[in-house]
């Protein structure tokens, strides 16, 4: 016990002193030639107390002092788990969808707005999941495809006056094209190189959006994009169709909900198809996959194109929702945020990603006064998840059984 105590507290103490040394020059040295300690000390003390409390809890749990709370909790969790698994999977899905359908009845305008955001990010997260989670290709410029989709709708609509539903396939097509263009040269690379090159491509696309004044109106963005229009049947004077703008937020919410459901089921089906198995084999071992006859290049390119496809769709919906696009919305930080959602929820796991997106969109809205700390916490979350739970909150289930598992 004492040994273990020493093993944890010694590095912790050194680490905290180290942190003080790092914080003090940033907080305590002022340009008017004065040095102060108290503000640094205050900030440092908060961090110290918070992290020490976490560490104490961890130690207490390890030492068995929390068994009187932990054991009943654990038993409750496992019994809930067994009961939850007893309920068939589809009833969860139906429950979630029904809940989502009735959400606008309870939520006000603001709540619906947040929900729309969640749904759009679910599409993005699931699309990125094809690349990162299924195929193992880390893409750091993913948001560029979203941008391409959004700008495709914005430009086709404002320049040629095309409606949303005609533009939607175009948005998806242009995003796929961008995916193919990015994917073709980069897919010969592996791992780290791919990550940095996709980051470069993402920046190139953003810079083009930012600098090509004649086409995209540069940093000012494009204003006055039409909302989604729809023809609804009217029965007043016989049977006619009437054009109708879906400007009401809750109507738009249902559209995005449909998109999110389409994305989730589409990706689910891709995942359990032959293609999905090929992707997973590439993720596990590319050389072995190639040996088994998987055309790795084609499948990796396909992963890119499919990921870009869903991002493009989401982009068109985003443009129709905001009715304004500017390069500001498609920075690297957005890519990092989507990636953080995927990592938090669990790479390759569809329910995990939905949970991750909901957590990372809704929690910052709840804790609005900590707005400035948002990205700080995102970054820390990524590091902590990688250190302690690399498979995410809801880890993906492996498909099939591995030969070494079956025997045991």
């Amino acid at each position, binding site marked *: 016990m004492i040994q273990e105590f020493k093993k944890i507290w010694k590095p912790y103490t050194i*680490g905290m002193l180290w942190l003080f040394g790092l914080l003090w*020059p940033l907080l305590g040295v002022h340009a008017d*030639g004065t040095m102060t300690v108290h503000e640094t000390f205050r900030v440092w003390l908060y961090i110290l107390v918070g992290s020490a409390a976490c560490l104490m809890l961890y130690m207490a749990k390890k030492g068995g002092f929390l068994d009187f709370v932990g054991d009943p909790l654990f038993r409750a969790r496992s019994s809930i788990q067994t009961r939850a698994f007893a309920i068939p999977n589809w009833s969860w899905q139906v429950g979630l969808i029904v809940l989502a359908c009735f959400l606008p009845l309870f939520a006000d305008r603001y709540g619906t707005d947040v929900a729309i955001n969640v749904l759009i990010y679910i599409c993005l997260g699931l699309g990125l999941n094809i690349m990162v989670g299924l195929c193992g290709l880390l893409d750091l410029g993913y948001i560029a495809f979203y941008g391409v989709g959004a700008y495709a709708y914005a430009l086709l609509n404002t320049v040629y006056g095309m409606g949303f539903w005609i533009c939607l396939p175009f948005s998806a097509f242009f995003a796929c094209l961008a995916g193919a263009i990015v994917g073709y040269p980069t897919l*010969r690379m592996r791992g780290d190189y791919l990550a940095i*090159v996709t980051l470069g491509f993402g920046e190139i696309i953003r810079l083009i959006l930012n600098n090509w004044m004649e086409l995209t109106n540069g940093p000012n963005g494009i204003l006055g994009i039409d909302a989604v229009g729809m023809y609804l049947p009217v029965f007043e004077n016989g049977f006619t169709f009437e054009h109708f703008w879906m400007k009401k937020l809750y109507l738009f919410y249902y559209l995005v909900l449909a998109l999110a459901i389409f994305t989730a089921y589409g990706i689910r089906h891709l995942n359990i198809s032959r293609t999905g198995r090929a992707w997973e084999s590439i993720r596990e071992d590319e050389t072995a996959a190639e040996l088994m006859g998987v055309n790795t290049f084609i499948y990796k390119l396909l992963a890119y194109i499919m990921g870009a496809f869903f991002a493009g769709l989401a982009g068109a919906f985003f443009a129709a929702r905001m009715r304004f696009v500017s390069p500001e919305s498609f920075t690297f930080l957005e890519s990092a945020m989507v990636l953080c959602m995927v990592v938090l929820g669990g790479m390759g796991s569809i329910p995990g990603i939905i949970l991750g997106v909901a957590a990372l969109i809704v929690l910052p809205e709840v804790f609005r006064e900590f707005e400035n700390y948002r990205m700080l916490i995102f970054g820390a*979350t990524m590091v902590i998840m990688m*250190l302690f739970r690399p498979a995410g909150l809801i880890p993906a289930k492996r498909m099939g059984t591995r030969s070494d598992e079956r025997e045991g």
Partner: protein
Amino acid sequence: MEYFIQQFVNGLTLGGMYALIALGYTMVYGVIQLINFAHGEFFAAGGYVGAITLGYLSGLGYMQTHPVLCLSAAFVFAMAYCAYLAVGVEKIAYKPLRKESRLAALLSALGMSIFLSNGMMLTQGVYDKIYPGEMFQGRFDFGTVAISYLQIMIIVLTALLLVGLNLLVFRTKIGMAMRATAQDKTMSALVAIGSNKIISLTFAIGAGLAAAAGIMYGLYYGSVRYDMGFIPGIKAFAAAVLGGIGNITGAMLGGLIIGMVEVFGAGYFSSEYKDVFAFIILIGVLYFKPTGIMGENIDDTRV
């Protein structure tokens, strides 16, 4: 012609800074095969600490009397601070993941990068921090070619640091230990080289060089910003890849080439797309000659 020479000097200045940053990437990659995404943040942190030190000293009034001494102090403090920061980051975010998959380490590095840049934003503010460097203004005029004192200072200091690093890596026992660790950690452990210490040292040296580049960047452009590490970080990475990642001489050469291309591209083609040239070079190099100019080995075991 004068325009060409002017651009050449500008390119040399910028390229030197990129070379200093690229060295950190390439050294870390050489030793643990990880792209240290947070390296750009070390560069920005160096710029900030330099600004803070210079601001403090000018607040005390020393800047006006001993500018060179103050600048040296700023360099020393910033380099020490970033070395200290880098060792801490390595211990927290990279060391526990050394045995895990590449993706885990890469994501951890990315998270650390976001964390650090936002930490700087929270402590130092969202807006540009003006660099207190007005005493280093002034320039030599050769006809129409103007070379500022700052540019000379940057070029000379960069050259000194690069020579110093080369001496360290190729002429001393420590350098030999670093090269041995890069080649084979198990074997070097057998001959009593502590690989953990060497890895920490590599991070510290790389971050120190990046910090020096950060101060130069701040002085050259007149201000620093919390997210300034991002774009120069990618460009420096491009430089490291161009030179052949893991290769120190290659990184220096790559940095100079990227700096030149950027300056000439901005001067002769389009200044709006100056950031794009480095990315295009990066993609081109990786596509056509992924081993880079100096040709380090890149196969399944390394990438």
